[in-house]
């Protein structure tokens, strides 16, 4: 037994030590930096603790040193949450029928569609968002097509709006919603669905009362997989959103670039992680609750 334990420890230690040093420690360090004072030329003043970075989220100090409420950052957080939530909802509305369709196919056919769905996810995120620039920009592919059909005569001007960011996010994370829902649907025993039909339920009722409840863990999983990267997205809002639809990710980046306010950037990162932990905890609770109810 002891030998086994020693063996496991030896095998696990490289990965564990590496990740402890280069992901766990940096996160804790970030937490510490968020309560430090900002250095005069960027960086931080070590040992000088302050909560000013967190205060900055809500209040700003004017030239006379008075604190006044500042809703700018709250607005960016709200916009990020809204965009992430909308993206999650839209990907769900596309993914559910798609996954349902896949579950009616044979395993082999479904594997092919699964492959088709996965490919775009593995291609470069920048390249995928860049492709949308080509489509959405003024005089781009979409404009040319719409004017050719004669449906519109004016340019649509979608690029550099929150809508463009939303399209980019939906595109980037749709596979994350399809996969877990499909996996959950695949696990449902076909005889349960058959039984529901035999007992006289119509298609909608079967979907509502049998399929959706059984697929709920997959739906919740998909929602987390989409919402989490969306809330911290950097590439889509940066390339497609333009200046008016900044998200948290861009705000964080700015603190380490032009603004040179590391404690504030670290604080934003901490708030982002806390917000995501809250969402995941809520999803886990919902899942647990559902399990109890269905029992």
């Amino acid at each position, binding site marked *: 037994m002891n030998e086994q334990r020693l063996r496991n420890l030896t095998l696990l230690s490289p990965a564990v030590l590496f990740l402890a040093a280069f992901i766990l420690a940096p996160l804790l360090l970030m937490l510490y930096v968020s309560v430090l004072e900002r250095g005069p030329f960027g960086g931080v003043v070590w040992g000088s603790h302050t909560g000013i970075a967190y205060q900055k989220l809500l209040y700003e100090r004017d030239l006379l040193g008075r604190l006044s409420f500042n809703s700018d950052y709250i607005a960016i957080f709200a916009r990020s949450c809204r965009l992430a939530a909308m993206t999650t909802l839209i990907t769900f509305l596309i993914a559910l029928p798609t996954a349902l369709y896949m579950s009616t196919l044979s395993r082999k056919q479904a594997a092919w569609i699964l492959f088709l769905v996965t*490919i775009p996810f593995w291609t470069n995120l920048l390249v995928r968002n860049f492709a949308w620039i080509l489509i959405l920009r003024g005089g781009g*592919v979409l404009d040319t097509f719409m004017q050719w059909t004669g449906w519109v005569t004016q340019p649509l001007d979608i690029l550099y709006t929150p809508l463009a960011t939303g399209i980019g996010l939906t595109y980037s994370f749709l596979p994350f919603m399809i996969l877990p829902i499909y996996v959950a649907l695949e696990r449902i025993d076909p005889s349960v669905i058959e039984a529901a039909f035999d007992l006289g339920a119509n298609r909608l009722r079967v979907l509502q009362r049998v399929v959706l409840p059984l697929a709920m863990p997959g739906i919740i999983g998909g929602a987390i997989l989409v919402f989490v990267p969306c809330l911290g997205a950097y590439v889509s809002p940066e390339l497609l959103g333009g200046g008016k639809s900044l998200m948290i990710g861009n705000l964080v980046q700015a603190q380490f670039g032009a603004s040179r306010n590391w404690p504030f950037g670290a604080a934003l990162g901490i708030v982002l992680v806390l917000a995501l932990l809250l969402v995941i905890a809520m999803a886990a609770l919902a899942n647990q609750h559902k399990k109890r109810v269905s029992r």
Partner: protein
Amino acid sequence: MSRHKLLSSRINATVAALAILFLYLPIVTLVVLSFNDNDLTTIWTTVSVKWYLAVLQNGDILRATKNSLMVACAATFFATCMATLAALGMVRISRGPRVLLEGLLGLPLLVPEIVTAVALLILFVLIGFPLGLTSVTVAHTVFCIPFAYYPIKSRLAALDQSLLEAASDLYASPRRRFFRVELPLLSSGICAGALLAFISSLGDFVITYFVAGPGATTLPIYIFSLIRLGVTPEVNALSAIFLFASIVMISIAFVLLQSISEQKKPKGAA
């Protein structure tokens, strides 16, 4: 073998078709436009490969590609080694520590990229680690570990234990058993994991952007700077090449993963 046939409906099939169309429309658009002769990128004139030639002759692009490949190879190697050992070490560990360890191994995928990027930047600056290709490699190894770990873990779970027992019964030493039986059996999982790690390292932008520092330009960083300057046909061609390379690699990984799930099936049926 058709499963939930009763649920089939025309609406679902239509949405699925539209979803696939939505996923591929931008990719196809990009590839088509990359063969456009015209400078204006969206006005079609004639087919031409001149932008591909321009990409191949651009020294900056070749340097960036070399940097990307070096980082991806190194990060994949380190991450796959650590992930393989970790997967082997995770057998017969009690539930409590296992949850914690699995959590740590999955942490790089759970934390938003931007947060990992910032946290690593702070660490590197604090300990005086010079920002360059080495810091990028370390950062990539972090998020490559989970990508490599999961396929190896699932291959290990599908492993037929009786083969290992047979090896021992035939007097193979533990060392010989590992190198001659266990490792070859795990190889499809290790290859799939390494490929996934390689693809994600090659494609990473956000984390690299923070920890690269000047001089360590990788391909995504270079593409980003080009896009910032404006849309040029050269970016189309470069992106199309990148796209093609990713599709080839993911296809190989998919075939490997597919073979793992097929090996799993008879065991599940028994």
